[in-house]
């Protein structure tokens, strides 16, 4: 006998990372609905981006990166689809080979040799310089999350003051649209 009348937690299976694109009515509270669904049902949000993409129709597009077992991911998609303002849920990871991009703003501070090193690294990564003072730079880098991670790791050596990241925006390749 267990001490509970609920069944045991299931044996763990391997979780996988999925990127979901969700089209929703851009109405008040819709983000709270989506975020509340994840917290209420114990799902995990790694990244969430949202913006209105079709102004005349008031439709927003959310990109959510989440992790879970196959069964959990399936549940997440169905639960999202069940929300009344949700139009469509697309699992870009299942569709395969989607484009995922993130934008980061990185403020690096320092003087002398560090400054020129920072500029050289920024150029190597293809980052743009948005702001420069005598003792700081603000770089903008757009790329896959891994590239941004690497950029931040390298810059950390030179003295990062601040990082701001957007989270992932994603889209499938080819002619097919959401």
């Amino acid at each position: 006998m267990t001490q509970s009348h609920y069944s045991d937690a299931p044996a763990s299976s391997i979780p996988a990372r999925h990127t979901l694109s969700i089209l929703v009515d851009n109405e008040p509270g819709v983000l709270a609905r989506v975020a509340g669904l994840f917290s209420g049902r114990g799902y995990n949000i790694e990244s969430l981006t949202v913006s209105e993409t079709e102004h005349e129709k008031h439709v927003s597009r959310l990109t959510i990166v989440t992790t879970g077992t196959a069964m959990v991911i399936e549940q997440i998609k169905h639960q999202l689809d069940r929300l009344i303002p949700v139009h469509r849920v697309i699992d870009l990871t299942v569709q395969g080979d989607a484009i995922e991009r993130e934008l980061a703003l990185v403020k690096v501070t320092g003087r002398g040799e560090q400054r020129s090193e920072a500029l050289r690294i920024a150029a190597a990564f293809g980052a743009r310089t948005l702001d420069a003072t005598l003792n700081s730079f603000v770089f903008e880098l757009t790329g896959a999350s891994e590239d941004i991670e690497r950029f931040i790791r390298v810059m950390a050596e030179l003295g990062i003051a601040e990082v701001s990241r957007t989270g992932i925006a994603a889209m499938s390749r080819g002619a097919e649209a959401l």
Partner: protein
Amino acid sequence: MSETMSGAEMVIKALQDQGVEHLFGYPGGAVLPIYDAMFHQDKVQHILVRHEQGAVHAAEGYARSSGKVGCVLVTSGPGATNAITGLTDALLDSIPLVCITGQVPTHLIGSDAFQECDTVGITRHCTKHNYLVRSVEDLPRILHEAFYVASHGRPGPVVVDIPKDVQFALGQYEKPQSNQHKTYRPQMDGDISKIRAAVELMAHAKKPVFYTGGGVINSGDEASALLRELVKLTGFPITSTLMGLGSYPAADPQWLGMLGMHGTYEANMAMHDCDVMICIGARFDDRITGRLNAFSPNSKKIHVDIDPSSINKNVRVDIGIVGDCGHVLKDMLTEWKALKPAPDRKAIAPWWEEVSAWKAKDCLAYRGSKTTIKPQYAIERLYELTKDMDPYITTEVGQHQMWAAQYFRFESPNRWMTSGGLGTMGYGLPAAIGTQMAHRDSLVIDIAGEASILMNMQEMSTAVQYRLPVKIFILNNEYMGMVRQWQELLHGSRYAESYSQSLPDFVKLAEAYGGKGIRCSDPAKLDDAIREMIAYPGPVIFDCLVEKMENCFPMIPSGKAHNEMIMNDLSDDAGVEIGNIIDQKGKALV
């Protein structure tokens, strides 16, 4: 064609246009304009409850017994928060409700104004959908949409939160036209190729079983009729969840009784040993499955559900069909008839022999008594004495609820109103009031426990005010019986706080409310006392003093499989030492 009117008038007009006849509610500052608008008309009758939770449960009882959308009107702040339990109950049991809440004026929202709460924030998780109406221009659309969303797809509660300034504001009212939501379109028809595959699987089954739930009832009377036809045609055994009782007649020989934690031996064994399971409108709830990894290990599973998120949520199924139970059942019947399965009943004859052997165990037998009323006996007698009156039964939550599910027998859908998913004590009396409102001339009985009934006892006053002759049949064992049973099972019979201390005199209580009180403790006098209750034209509290220590069997204990039920051991005195029974595993496991 549009008409100029105030937001408050729009609410009443929309209710009228949606065919609402009854509205359960409680007034307060933030809904006064709506109450005022109601004052000038008589199409929508308002039923004044005594607590907002009661309003929501009453609307649930009304909805579930009539198939209509239940309607609630409460004020802001405490009005809304008191409604939360009812809304959550309706969400878990898929009951269509529209709950209108008042809100402080728009310019005060967020200022911690008097009787302000974030109603849409709080109810986001316990409604199917909710709205905060920011402008009177949106109000007619939202009101009509709320009815559409509540009743289409998997039904559920919808909250419409209306600030007081929006209620006063003038705007253009539009009658419902298409009445739809702009994007929400639940899938009604099942994928025909999957239905064909399912029927194919059924045709070759050697040990099939139907497992049906509340979805069949939600789908409407036709779905129940189609289910009956399909079950008859196939000759398969059928079992139902707590929520599904009545969709298939209990008197039919193919009926195995309820399944699950307190289901019958034959139903649970059939579920465990079947080779094809046809689940229609049920959701593999944890009270049904028992230990998941031992749940029906050798079966192919077919699952029909209007909610895609129900499929593969708890149990992996082989064929998941998204669609309305009625629509899918219709297609299944057509396909079955077209297929004309050859081996037919002969193929499943050995299966029926197994099932009959399980049935022969007579798992609901109990030790009778000449001196005390056994709770099972009380329900049996209540059933026998009322069955020809087509009664409507509601329940509270606990042992009495399970005994009612086991011993009361339902022949038609919409006759059984109980809190299944949320397990809300205090559901039964307000639900009975709502049911009686929808069926003024029918016999409505709330089968209750003495602990549960006290949770919404105040609604007795509502019953008296509206001359609703509901019968409250209390199985009084002076314990929160199910809590005590679990304490016997899991906590060494240490009855922490499960004894019902300082109970009121229910007979005097009934009289104090202006109803009738009856008490009975003698099995020999029970029949006459029940007849007296039925004959009385007003509300009755029947205080049925039953055997105190009786436990509810059969039972699938925690973490066990369907074939590991604890049975009612007739060789022991009722209810004793079940903790010990479980420790001696071999004896406990059937």
